[in-house]
């Protein structure tokens, strides 16, 4: 039965997770890298036979993902992947359930399901491919497109303020929030690994280049000559250092962050903000999440925050067991014949 996971030595390779379907993303799409990093990481992190893995998706380019993974997969409808995945997880808690989604799918039409999955701490791993554009519908602005963006539906520039995804996840109290980049394979693998090991809703925002409709959206973060000055890699227990030659750092003055120059002699590494993934104060995570929107600050990647708390599925089955203990296993005959009954002879 599906409910009893067989404990055996499992040795998988990346190839074991590739399905027989031809991958049909546009050549040069960042999705290829994400698929490759997942397939590379899975043999390392999957602690159960692969028939216990389910990939669920919604609609959009990213949502073709399950077809390319040789696991169980469900290609759902637009925005509903977190809800479908929730049903899968609650039906069988032994399954490892992964969601592949995009910025439009997860934050626009599926925003409600996303925040409630986070709030309930359902044990799902949610990978959001953020390309800041609607790709599958050929180039309309998305809820993460920057203000002023000219697209097919915003010929005079977008007047929307974009979502800040880690901030949104934080507001919904997701228990694991991380960010990575398609062109940073080692880092992406590490984030997938970390999400896979987390119990509860694990959210990874993955910056993904759409080379057809929004090419270069993240080039500052990926190109050799700019990335060091624009990316801050968060490492637990380490001071926040970035820049070419690690010459810059982040200092936290009360609740005000500042970028400081480590070469002037005024500040040393000891003055810097030391990243703490388990920081119980969400205000500091929010400060980190806001770097993106603050001129002069680098874009953080890595694990923003991780909280350990009971997951919804654990709670659900705990409660079932508690009630069984208290009331005894349910007896149908007894329930049917309960309440005020009378006999007619």
């Amino acid at each position: 039965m599906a409910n009893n996971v067989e404990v055996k030595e499992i040795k998988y390779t990346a190839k074991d997770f590739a399905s027989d379907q031809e991958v049909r993303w546009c050549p040069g799409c960042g999705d290829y890298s994400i698929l490759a990093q997942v397939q590379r990481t899975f043999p390392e992190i999957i602690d159960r036979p692969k028939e216990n893995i389910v990939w669920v998706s919604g609609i959009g380019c990213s949502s073709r993902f399950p077809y390319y993974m040789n696991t169980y997969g469900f290609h759902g409808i637009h925005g509903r992947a977190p809800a479908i995945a929730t049903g899968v997880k609650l039906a069988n808690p032994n399954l490892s359930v992964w969601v592949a989604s995009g910025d439009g799918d997860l934050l626009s039409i599926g925003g409600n399901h996303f925040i409630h999955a986070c709030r309930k701490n359902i044990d799902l791993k949610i990978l959001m491919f953020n390309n800041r554009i609607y790709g599958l519908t050929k180039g309309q602005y998305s809820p993460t497109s920057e203000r002023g963006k000219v697209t097919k539906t915003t010929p005079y520039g977008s007047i929307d303020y974009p979502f800040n995804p880690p901030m949104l996840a934080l507001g919904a109290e997701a228990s694991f929030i991380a960010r990575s980049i398609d062109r940073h394979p080692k880092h992406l693998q590490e984030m997938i690994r970390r999400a896979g090991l987390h119990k509860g809703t694990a959210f990874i925002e993955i910056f993904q280049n759409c080379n057809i409709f929004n090419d270069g959206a993240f080039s500052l973060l990926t190109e050799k000559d700019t990335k060091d000055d624009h990316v801050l890699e968060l490492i637990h227990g380490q001071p926040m250092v970035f820049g070419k030659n690690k010459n810059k750092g982040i200092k936290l003055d009360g609740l005000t962050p500042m970028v400081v120059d480590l070469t002037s002699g005024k500040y040393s590494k000891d003055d810097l903000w030391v990243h703490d993934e388990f920081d119980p104060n969400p205000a500091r995570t929010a400060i980190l999440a806001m770097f993106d929107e603050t001129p002069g600050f680098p874009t953080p990647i890595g694990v923003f925050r991780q909280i350990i708390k009971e997951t919804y599925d654990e709670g659900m089955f705990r409660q079932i067991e508690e009630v069984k203990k208290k009331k005894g296993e349910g007896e149908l005959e007894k329930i049917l014949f309960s309440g005020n009954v009378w006999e007619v002879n």
Partner: protein
Amino acid sequence: METEKEKELLQLKEVTIRFAGDSGDGMQLTGTQFSETTALVGNDLNTLPDYPAEIRAPAGTIYGVSGFQLHFSSEDIYTPGDQPDVLVAMNPAALKKNLPELKKGGMIIVNSDSFDIKNLSLAHYESNPLEDGTLDGYQVYQVPISSLTANALEGVKLSPKEVSRAKNFFALGLMYWLFNRPIDNTVNWIHQKFAKNPEYIEGNEKALRAGYNYGEMTELFTARYTVEPAKLPKGIYRSISGNEATALGFLTASVKSGLPLFLGSYPITPASEIIQYLSTYKNFGVKTFQAEDEISGITTAIGAAFAGNLAITSTSGPGLALKTEAIGLAVMTELPLVIIDVQRGGPSTGLPTKTEQADLLQAVCGRNGEAPVAVVAAATPSDCFNMALEASRIAIKYMTPVILLTDGYIANGSEPWRIPHTNEIPEIPVKFRTEKEGFYPYLRNENLARPWAIPGTPGLEHRIGGLEKSDIYGNVSYDPDNHHKMVQLRAKKIKNIENDIPLLEVEGDQSGELLVAGWGGTYGTIKEAVNKARAQGYKVSQVHFRYINPFPKNTEQVLKSFKKILIPEINLGQLARLIKSEFIIDVQQFNVVRGLPLRVADIVDQIIKTLGGNNGK
């Protein structure tokens, strides 16, 4: 004190009582208690709660009036009664709202304390109806219920407001006396309900007994009434509402299929009770998930179906509309799923607390693409149990979504239910695919059902989804011929269910002049009307549809055995439309859409009219 006179005990065959008061007056509770006691003394009964959507509408207003009607009898009955014989009116607004429906010459018991200037004006009475002749021709009993309750509760440690709230128990006690029912069941209920609040126990019990004793002692009532137990088939009974029966039906389906039950649902009137009931059965392993919205309610259920649970979602009309796209997904992925729609007045928010049958076309047709689903409908409160089981059986056997239609009337109304023993209920066989050899996700069996291969099964890893799939192999396919084939296969699979459901049963002559055809919650009303017309000598038969998509196999033959067909519905003719288009026959419609059950008398009139006066006799 004067010696007590033995009061006359008059025997009645049937009585319809309506309790009416402010929505905060506890009328639903009073009605439910009276119903339970009435069921326990062995009467057949049928109830109709009728309450406003506002939880506590401003006191004393007409729109804040809440009512509970029950019809009980020593014979079989099928409806809550067209017109009450007795009206208990706790304030002027309750009298104003309900008087037009009371039988001519009926009995009115009013709380005379509440007929003050303020309440009269709130009810838009220019003069006091107790004094100005409005009630001439009725038997009116003016009882100062508020002050009698206050007197009875003197010395009990309750605030004046709490004392006032106990007045519904006084009214209930008085009605128990008047209709010769024991008070013990309600006394026990009070003790259980208020176990943590000894003052409430004392106050409510005192009020109840005071009401009962008042009937006995006062000169006001010279007679009391009794209704003998009904001759119901042998068995053990309980009084059950449609929503409770629905919940028990799915619990039973879970036990009988051996599948854990998963309910994804968002609260919505009048369906919320289904998730409330099911959430208490955790010791059966039942999983209830209160979703963030209607769409999550159904999509979590679809996920749970994919992973091998008996998955259901419950809602009402507006929620069914929101679930539409996801039902299409369940059609495409061919997963077993039951969607329960407890219909209410529409469109839009409509009349949330009122009943209607206007979601039939939405259930049968309301999706994008060719998206056939099985549609079944419960006929009475207790029939919800049977149809919940049937919906589950069909969903699992045919790997298809099934829509189960009930409505606000049968969901909230109750009737005696002969409880089936679990060993009388057939098992629901389930076969998960486990063999690797020859497995394809869309390879169909003799029922055209595809295999249920759930995650966790080694070697059967596969992907499904909302994109069109290739026949047999289940890969994404844009092939034109494949799409045409799949559209037909999905339609044929649903049509084939006709071989697996009971034939239509005609009640009355098997052929003749007139057949009255109904579906869903109107069964009782139509049955009573047909019985009345037959008793008057009219030749008329009845069929009732509980399976609507597909229709039972003999539908065409049955319909064509009658010269005329009359279809009463609480909509503008939705079953009529389906029947006309499917069988190309002419039908007469009778449609009244008032948010209330149809009236027996109106259907009798229609029967007579359709028969052309004396025709058919």
